[in-house]
């Protein structure tokens, strides 16, 4: 972890003016980008550790007032929280380096196990949300660009802002109210009905991703059940990102519509609609790939809220439960793990962007 002091010297930041390096190329970019993962994780983990420890030890936070002072002291001593913070810090760093994020206080499970159990659910939710975002955001964005500054554009832009302005939990509650309570079309909460969940428990190698499991089960009823549970949470979380995509596609399509090659196509008599559909939209999608990196972070934050709204038993739901139980070891572990995930996905997204668009490699 000492890399942090030496590393930044050769890592141009994302916001730094791009140096006009002649060569370097893809290999160097990938290496630098890969090394940048470590300071990012290191900083976040350190930040979370220092913040969480600044309010005292987690055992007092969880058990304080419930246990007599001497028992509390014994527990604190057994867990090693009475040692100097700096010692605990280095021990924590060492543990994280070996993939050990600690055990939860309330139910004494390894945080990594919690992640594996519930991470699949969150992954599934994020996947549905991204599908909704793509289906809704990209065509509507192209439409808005096509009708630029006219009435449909105005409606679509207000829609995009509404997507952003509506908290996911409020959107979720409205959807629930309309589709589950009044129309009774879709289930109120959960990831699947109890019957399907029990059936999937019997599978030999469960993935924890219900869609995959239900397909493995081979029962159309189970697949339908899983999907019907996914619709509302997927829409609630997906609309948030859909609004971002819509705005991004609109801006970029408008930008590419003014470029020379589109002008050339236009002068050949290509219709305006075809220009948007065939010529302008592909380059406009590249920024979306880069934005997905940031969206992952937003999706994870939104997942905490969506999962709480729909009792979707994923990481976010579990995090909220640990928060309520004041189990700060679990909270610290999950947050640190999420930091690792965010840093890794950002790396993957940047690599994909660099592979697609050579201009990204500086």
């Amino acid at each position: 972890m000492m890399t942090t002091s030496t590393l930044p010297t050769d890592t141009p930041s994302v916001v730094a003016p791009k140096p006009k390096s002649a060569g370097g190329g893809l290999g160097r970019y990938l290496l630098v980008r890969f090394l940048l993962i470590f300071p990012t994780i290191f900083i976040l983990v350190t930040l979370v550790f220092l913040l969480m420890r600044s309010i005292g030890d987690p055992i007092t936070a969880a058990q304080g007032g419930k246990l007599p002072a001497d028992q509390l002291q014994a527990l604190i001593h057994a867990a090693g929280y009475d040692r100097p913070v700096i010692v605990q810090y280095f021990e924590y760093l060492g543990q994280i380096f070996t993939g050990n994020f600690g055990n939860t206080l309330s139910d004494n499970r390894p945080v990594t196990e919690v992640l594996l159990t519930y991470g699949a659910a969150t992954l599934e939710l994020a996947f549905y949300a991204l599908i909704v975002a793509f289906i809704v955001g990209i065509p509507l964005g192209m439409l808005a660009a096509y009708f630029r500054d006219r009435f449909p554009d105005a409606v679509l832009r207000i829609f995009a802002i509404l997507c952003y302005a509506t908290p996911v939990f409020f959107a979720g509650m409205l959807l629930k109210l309309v589709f589950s309570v009044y129309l009774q079309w879709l289930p109120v909460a959960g990831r699947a009905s109890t019957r399907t969940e029990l059936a999937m428990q019997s599978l030999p190698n469960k993935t924890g991703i219900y869609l995959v499991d239900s397909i493995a089960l081979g029962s159309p009823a189970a697949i339908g059940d899983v999907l019907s549970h996914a619709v509302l949470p997927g829409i609630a979380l997906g609309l948030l990102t859909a609004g971002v995509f819509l705005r991004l596609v609109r801006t970029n399509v408008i930008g590419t519509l003014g470029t020379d090659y589109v002008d050339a196509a236009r002068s050949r008599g290509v219709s305006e609609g075809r220009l948007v559909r065939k010529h302008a939209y592909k380059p406009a999608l590249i920024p979306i790939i880069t934005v997905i990196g940031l969206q992952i972070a937003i999706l994870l934050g939104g997942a905490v809220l969506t999962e709480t709204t729909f009792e979707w038993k994923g990481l976010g739901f579990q995090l909220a439960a640990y928060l309520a139980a004041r189990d700060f070891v679990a909270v610290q572990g999950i947050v640190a793990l999420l930091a690792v995930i965010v840093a890794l996905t950002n790396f993957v997204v940047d690599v994909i962007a660099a592979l697609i668009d050579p201009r990204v490699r500086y």
Partner: protein
Amino acid sequence: MSTTTEAVATLPPRKSGFFGRLPVLKQLRQSVGLQRGMLITGLVVTAIFVLVAIFAPLIAPYGFAQLRGPDGPFGAQQPPSPEHIMGTTVGGYDVYSRVIWGAQTAILVIIIAVIFSIFIGILLGLISGYIGGWLDRVLVVIGDAIYAFPSLLLAIVLSIVISGGQSSLWGGIFAAALSITVVYIPQYYRVIRAETIRIKAEPYVESAKMLGASTPRIMFRHVLRNATRTLPIIFTLNSSEAILTLAGLGFLGFGIEPTAAAEWGYDLNKALSDVTSGIWWTALYPGLAIVLAVLGITLVGESLNDLADPRLRGRKRVKAKSGAMSATSVDAPLPSDLDILDENATAPSSTDGLENSK
């Protein structure tokens, strides 16, 4: 010639200094058609939001923590009626009153959060961008790390640290505001740093240096005043994000106690179980309040953003009188337009920048 048009196109006409400007009015005049409509709608909604917050004690029929009227308790989960036009919550509070009082809480949090993050963010960005070196590199990596992290999670951690989860009116407001502050500092920091690096290379900064102006003087006098042009946009967009983060914290149970202040996110959290049994009023109104407040502020921010970006600015005006744009920016050379003038090296008024340093 080509450089002239490019400079004018990428740097739209801007307002005068930090205090004497009226940014929104300027943009209002600049806007056309749809964009003007969006800007005006946003301004009206935001104005209503602010007025409701200021006059909450006069508008709200009951207190935010009031459980009983002159004729006994309000009762829990009562549907809308003449006494309670938006019904009552599961805890027996008047929904309408809490929605009104909630505006006040939201505004207080925004003000505190935005002031803190603007000051700290600007200061860090200015120092980091102007001085550079290892400090800059370390700050950039830290800023990027925080920026990439889910802001709500960070806000949760911070609110645990600051208030241990739940607290009084000011404790809760400060906890929420400070959690939001830390999350948004990197945004101001990034923008100001990027601008500072750009401005640092401008000739007028170099001349000021030659004339012996001290580093702090150059930083605050020459760089800062020219680096703030994008601030109104970030300011508005951050305010709306602050409302959403506050609501998210409240929804997860890190809000302000109902007896200390009204907070929309908290009310929505309590309304979650109502929804399943078909009780809509406890969720709908606080939720709509959030949406409207965020919508209004975002509309203003988006419009300002579009007007600052020539690719997105309304086209009709350019079509109608194509010479008008460059005319406005040259006609009235404001101090903040200096970098345009410097690049073009046209008007004698480009010495304005040097007067400051003499």
